């Protein structure tokens, strides 16, 4: 052999590899040059015929060219493989994808969770109590005596549970019953919120449902004041409804707080509805009689409580105009939140 044969053979091999139109042609080209009987293999075999002093240089050159050819081969192979893998038709990327449905949390759950999150930032924890209550926890302990007209305003469902129960069983009319249950069980200080269902004997219409949901907040400690109540309520509603809301407190009456207030809020949204203020919650300083009823000393402890309707917050927040939508569970409704 002669060293000058190497370069033309390499050029021929490269040309053939590049010219291969498909993988089959490429494999054939490989066999032609690099196979057991290929031209390049033959050249390698004839290396022994060279003079001894020429062999190292020739060997080096041949190996270098072989590596070069193998690289060219694998690069061409990748090109051809890609070509073969290309879809026959171009993909229409505007076609809709194959969707996985994610379920949605009920809007009332979402609002409740948001409220819980805000309260937890300031050290509140969640508490709970039964929906079927006795008269003590729902009324008497909350300073609403049996013949008080306030009981009239809270038209109550009574449960037909004739049996061992000593007190009449009813569906709680407010989450305030949880206040009593918590205070009976643990000593102050207390810092809880209690979300849950409550019941009133109202016929269903756009703004009423016999069951709806409330959240109650209770804070009992030493030196708790109306100022604290105001500060916390403002914090919570600004977090929930945005920084531009303004809050006002209006004297009101609840049997279990003294003084008592109703809370109105105002925001660009409220003004868009053509109103100055929208009532959102009731609150007040825990009535000393309530403390006495659960065995707390009202000379030592003070506290505040407040409560509001979750539907109402959700309706304001999302612009929902009919409370019944929450309980119909139309999937087109649920999917929007």
């Amino acid at each position: 052999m002669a060293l000058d044969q190497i370069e033309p053979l390499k050029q021929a091999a490269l040309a053939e590899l590049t010219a291969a139109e498909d993988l089959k042609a490429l494999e054939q080209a490989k066999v032609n040059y690099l196979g057991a009987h290929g031209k390049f293999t033959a050249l390698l075999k004839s290396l022994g015929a060279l003079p001894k002093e020429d062999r190292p240089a020739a060997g080096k050159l041949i190996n270098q060219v072989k590596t070069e050819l193998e690289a060219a081969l694998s690069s061409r192979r990748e090109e051809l493989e890609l070509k073969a893998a290309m879809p026959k038709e171009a993909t229409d990327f505007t076609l809709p994808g194959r969707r996985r449905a994610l379920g949605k949390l009920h809007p009332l759950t979402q609002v409740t969770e948001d409220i819980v999150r805000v309260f937890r930032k300031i050290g509140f924890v969640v508490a709970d109590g039964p929906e079927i209550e006795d008269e003590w926890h729902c009324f008497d302990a909350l300073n609403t005596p049996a013949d008080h007209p306030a009981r009239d305003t809270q038209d109550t469902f009574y449960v037909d549970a004739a049996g061992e129960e000593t007190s009449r069983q009813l569906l709680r009319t407010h989450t305030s019953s949880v206040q009593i249950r918590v205070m009976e069980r643990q000593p102050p200080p207390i810092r809880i919120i209690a979300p849950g269902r409550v019941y009133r004997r109202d016929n269903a219409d756009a703004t009423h449902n016999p069951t709806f949901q409330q959240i109650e907040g209770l804070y009992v400690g030493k030196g708790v004041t109306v100022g604290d109540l105001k500060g916390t309520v403002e914090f919570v509603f600004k977090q929930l409804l945005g920084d531009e809301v303004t809050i006002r407190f209006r004297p009101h009456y609840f049997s279990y707080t003294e003084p008592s207030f109703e809370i109105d809020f105002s925001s660009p949204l409220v003004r868009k509805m053509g109103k100055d203020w929208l009532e959102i919650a009731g609150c007040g300083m825990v009535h000393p009689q309530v403390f006495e009823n659960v065995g707390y000393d009202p000379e030592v402890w003070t506290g505040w409580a407040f409560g509001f309707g979750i539907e109402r917050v959700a309706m304001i927040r999302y612009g929902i105009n009919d409370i019944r939508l929450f309980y119909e569970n139309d999937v087109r409704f649920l999917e929007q939140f």
Partner: protein
Amino acid sequence: MKVTLNWLKQYVGFDWTPEELRERLTMLGLEVEGMQKLGGEFEGIVVAEVLTRDKHPNADKLSLCRVADGKGERQIVCGAQNFKPGDKVPLILPGASLPPKPGEKEPFTIKVGKIRGVESHGMLCSPKELGLSDDAQGLLILPPAAKVGQPFAEHLGRAAGDVVYDLEITPNRPDLNSVIGIAREISAVTGNPLRLPDVKLPDGGDRVEKWVAVRLEDPELCARYAARVVRGVRVGPSPDWLRQTLEKVGVRSISNVVDVTNYVMLEIGQPLHAFDYHLLGKGQSGTPTIVVRRAGEGEKFTTLDGQERALTTQNLLIADETKAIALAGVMGGQNTEINEKTVDVLIESAWFKPQNIRATSKRLELRTESSYRFERGADIRICDWASCRAAQLILETAGGELLAGVVDAFPVPPAPKEIQLRHRKTDELLGVAIPPAESVKHLRRLGLEMIKEAADACTVRVPTFRVDLKREADLIEEVARLYGVDKIPATSPRGAIGANVFDAVHDHIAEARRLLTGLGLSEAQGQTLVSSESAKLVTGDVLALENPLSADMNLLRPSLIPGLLDMLRHNLHRKNDDVALFELGRVFRKENGVREQRNVAFALTGRRQPGFWTGDDREATYDIFDLKGILEEFLEQFGVRGANYARRAEAVSPYIESAVIQLGGKLILGEIGQLSPLLAKRCDLRDRVLIAELNLDMLLARRKSEKSFKPLPAFPSIRRDVAMIVPESTPHESVLNTVKKLKPANLERVDLFDVFRGQNIPPGQKSMAYAFTYRNPERTLTDEEVNAAHEKVIEQFRKELQATIRD
């Protein structure tokens, strides 16, 4: 409670605009639910006096005047010539409109404006501008006696404008169900004195005791009864002022005597009743005796509204010695009603026990202005004043002569109530330092008598009209109201960190919700109150309401399933065919009293996947294994293991086929199944409906949410497949149990990958194919040892399951 601006002004002075009054009342705790302006004639036009008249600097024909409008002076530019300083003239104030003229589209509204470079704050009016005559020659000059500042309508004796407020009175403040009560609040805020009407009665003729006696048979239920008699009245229509005042607040005018009783009730809050004296039965003494007594059991009485009412001994009656004449505190009787022939009137002013009036009113479903006030607590000390006031107004509007004195049965006047207020407590509760002198001032202005005053505390005597003031906190509220809640600074949240066992449970429940939405189900929240019809779908003792609103909401839900089915129906009716919902909520049963439990339930119907545009299975609808898969994934992710599913041999409502889900083989966690097609059809559900319900309280109790790391396998596994034909009755679980009993060496897991029936499989049999994965954590297994273990498994299948192994 309705009240008008002008009526309030009779008792207390204030110069707030109608809007300011609304705001002030609201912030005092008297929420204004409605405010209606009654347009009077000549709104914004007052009597003014011309003080000076000079030439307009820039116009010869105009004058520049200073006029007094009753509140101050204003500068007016005027074009008329017929007046001089000292004249009284009508002045229209900026913002007010001239009376509309025929053919005029918009009324002409006066603004502050410059006329030839000089500002005019209003306009002096001609008779034509006021619509009084066609005279446009000059100003209307009023008589010198006209009162400066008086509304022009009032000057003419025409109806003036007024504003009616509809107030929400909280049940603890019965004293605010009266115009004077509300005026007292305004007086407390402004410091302006409360002006009560002066009730001076003429010295009558005959003593009233000769005409009537009063006997209280139950002084607990009726603690005071005052009777007065006016003789010789002429019953007729009320004068305009009385009729108009009542009509503005929505009370129909009936006759002068009846209107007076209503007027005084609205004025001071004390319900009154007037009887025709001559319709009272006389006893042996020859004069009538008013007897306040309990009704006999079953006693019948016809009230003013013509209804005959059956009473019990719990109802209190006003009677004479022959018959009942009024249902005490609620409504008078037809038999003694004031009529056009009435000449002598007996005025009743009494105090009845609130609880008794409330019970009567509730039982008879008869609510009146009178019962409303008595049941909230009337002022026992005001009875005689109210009676005098009524007598005064009857004399004024219906004439007649008042008998001297009063028969006032008031056996035990209540002891005065005293409350101490420690100023330190006010500051501690409100979070603001209020000077003691200020607190004292506020309490005084509310009509509380200060009987002791020290540096650190004061003691007040509570007037009987304030039934709500019982203890110190109540006084602090009064101070807060008058000080102004808006002036109490808000302090940032601070204080203790809360603790409650439920707090963690709340998070567990939130986690359950999050997992289920991740699995593609949307959360529903249904009605808790359901009908007996829908509760029938499930078994067990249901809990009924004693006083349901309607038959379709008379039970507490014993299960979440009926509610979910209602929601499916609701959706299907609206063409939402593909629905996957879960609900997490409480269910109720009658079990040793009541049992309340949290459940979670699932309902699937329609297509399994969101719509897609290719593929054979794109229309596939949910089947039972979709739901079971959701449950399995949910339970595993939630951290509850060991659930097994035992098919029920019988169909149990509401399922056509179902299984009981058990935990640890014993505890019943819930059930899963396919809804009976008959029920589905009844709910208009077209596709298969899969439902399941689990006891969430049990899941919460059994949840293990801790996680721990297991090292990843370092050595390869070896897989061996088995396909076998077994009888149709062989459940998957018994295959697993067979393997479990055998405990093959190095077996890591067994997975079912095919179940097949049909070609080459004999009838009554099925083919099941399992993949066995073997692995040793310490080393690489050899084929030989895996084969040996696997052979034993196959042998066991042959023996125990009568399996034919397919090759």
